[in-house]
């Protein structure tokens, strides 16, 4: 018993050290955001702000309408997440459970699109959005990202792991494709759907170039563009920039806390019943 406890303590100490290392960049930006501008650049660097200085946050909120940007980013990311979940799930389902001619080739074609860098498709996408008159709107911000080969690939690989017997059993019970998809596949895929959702959310949240290109009014801009507004090219003020970074990374941190619980639950409950 005693040895076990000692081992446990050691393990926790190691875990705490490891998590400190992982969290250091986040902690460091938080601490810098609380420094005064005089203290940011001292040598050796002062880790602990003295005194705590919250004015950078007020300044950052004043320099750019971050509240509006947060809302825009949130709406944009949420639409993209919903779109990708639906399109990826349907496409992956088709690739796994529907038998049709050229299925393998079509899947390879889908995969091949992953080889094309985003930058290459950006110009044609921009032209399309522009001719549709969608500049400076959520439609322009989200539509090009509603379907993605990566999501389809991810979900297809997962669905392949589900026993095909489930599909046969459902068929025997008279379930059609929709019924099987909604009652069996979706509940069993919750962990991977959550993973995809978090991944896509972060990806959309961090987009910079596309929102910068397609939006023009300050009221349609997203957080990453807003972060640029806090930076002065000639003289960077780190405390202000970091205050902005902390503000805009809060929603993603909250999402991670939330999704983490969901993920763990999904992983333990989603096992195939024997």
């Amino acid at each position, binding site marked *: 018993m005693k040895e076990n406890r000692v081992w446990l303590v050691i393990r926790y100490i190691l875990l705490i050290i490891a998590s400190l290392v992982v969290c250091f960049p986040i902690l460091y930006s938080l601490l810098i955001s609380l420094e005064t501008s005089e203290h940011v650049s001292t*040598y050796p660097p002062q880790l602990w702000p003295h005194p705590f200085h919250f004015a950078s946050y007020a300044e950052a909120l004043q320099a750019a309408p971050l509240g509006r940007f947060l809302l825009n980013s949130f709406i944009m990311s949420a639409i993209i997440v919903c779109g990708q979940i639906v399109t990826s799930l349907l496409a992956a389902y088709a690739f796994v459970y529907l038998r049709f001619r050229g299925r393998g080739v079509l899947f390879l074609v889908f995969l091949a699109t992953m080889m094309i860098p985003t930058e290459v498709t950006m110009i044609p996408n921009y032209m399309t959005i522009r001719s549709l008159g969608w500049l400076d709107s959520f439609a322009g911000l989200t539509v090009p990202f509603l379907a993605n080969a990566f999501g389809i690939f991810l979900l297809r690989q997962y669905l392949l792991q589900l026993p095909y017997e489930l599909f046969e059993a459902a068929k025997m019970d008279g379930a059609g494709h929709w019924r099987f998809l909604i009652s069996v596949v979706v509940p069993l895929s919750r*962990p991977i759907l959550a*993973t995809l959702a978090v991944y896509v959310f972060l*990806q959309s949240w961090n987009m910079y*170039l596309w929102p*910068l*290109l397609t939006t023009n009014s300050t009221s349609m801009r997203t957080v990453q563009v807003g972060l640029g507004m806090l930076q002065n090219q000639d*003289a960077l*003020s780190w405390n202000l920039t970091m205050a902005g970074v902390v503000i805009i990374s809060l929603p993603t941190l909250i999402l991670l806390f939330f999704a*983490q619980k969901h993920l763990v639950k999904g992983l333990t409950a989603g096992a195939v019943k024997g």
Partner: protein
Amino acid sequence: MERNQNASRRPWIRKTAMWTVAASFGLTALLAGCGGGNTGSDENAAGGGGGANNGVIELKLWHAMGGVPGQALQHIVDDFNKSQSKIHVTAVYQGQYDDEFNKWKATQGQGGKDGPNIMQVYDIGTKFMIDSQDIVPMQDFIDQSHFDISQLEPNILGYYSVGGKLYSMPFNSSQPVLYYNKDMFKDAGIAEPPKTYDDVLADAKKLTKKGPDGKVAVYGIGLATYGWFFEQMLATQGADYVDHDNGRTGTATQAVFNGPEGLKIVNWWKSLYDAGVDLNLGPVTSQTQNAFLAGKCAMIIDSSGVYGNLVKGAKGKFEVGIGPLPRPAGATGGTIIGGGSLWITKDQPKAQQDAAWEFVKFAASPQEQAYWTETTGYFPITKAVYDDPGFKDWLKQYPDFQVAVDQLHSSKLTYATQGGLMGVFPQARQTVQDMLQAVLLGKQQPQPALDDAAKKVTDAIKNYNLTVA
């Protein structure tokens, strides 16, 4: 900035998704490449040109000012909108200079529907803007409205004038100066900032301090390998960057910065580095600023526009002094104005162009320029500012700024100090920066390195000239 990096990724994803993480890291690494400010984007941009509503003319101003200058610009725009009721200007931040410039390149030739009415462009984009033929020269408006430009700084106008014609209205202007830590100078027994290359080397040796572990604790000088400094140091020796009188009397066809003047600069730079008194942190000046504020180096060269920031950052630690940009003994040239200017675009109705001109005039007025300088540290573009009582008080508070003003006023306007003019300046600057690093790190000897860099720039100029001819 690695804006696309998913920094908050955590190791909670279990087995089933482990490879998701691996794959996504691959993707993010790929995407991270497009987040940088310098790579910019070659694709199109949006921007809805203005229109008229209820008799009010709506104008879009594109700019690249973030942070304090961004807020100060917004303040000027607000002042303008309040000062009259016929024109309404909306300022839109379009990313840093390179991002904004590339966005503009992409909107060209599309009827101006999505482009700006007024556009702020950096100094080195001047030739490109003229060649694009999508702008109306500022001179047209000046002649048409008999606007008096005698109060504007001739040395600043010089940069943006080609063939006697002013193409854009200077807006944010700056010059390179030498900043020094007054306290460190006092401790080392140095009375005033160094003026010549030899002085800098001698002073830097005195200022460099070693720690108890034998490593350098304080460097004499921290020189960012920023291409702009090289351009300025050529001008202080009266040397041109490109042929055809720096591109001022004809289209430049060749880079000529590899002459004896260029060699003098590079040799001096290398002698500082070899003596172990130069802190080399790469081409980004915010790095040397931080080192300076942290007391890691006693001198830096930087834009006059960062003075306010440095004073603020050094408060309670040391006193910041300004000296003129060092030059070789006996050199009689001057410095070039840097920064950005305002352009009026062509693809818009005449009424909007005239409205844009109203705004440009307003931004150049003494009152707004005084506010602009006091808030940002950029130069006032009009001499009338020096009579402003509020500005006089400000100068009393920051007496060292006078050194920068004197440097500007004492620069004789020649082809060298007007600044080089070519369509590929952003690339040229990058080439020079790479050359400086190669020399400092001992990968190449100064003269061959200069020759190589000049050849690369010449090739780029030739390619560019083919596209506009």
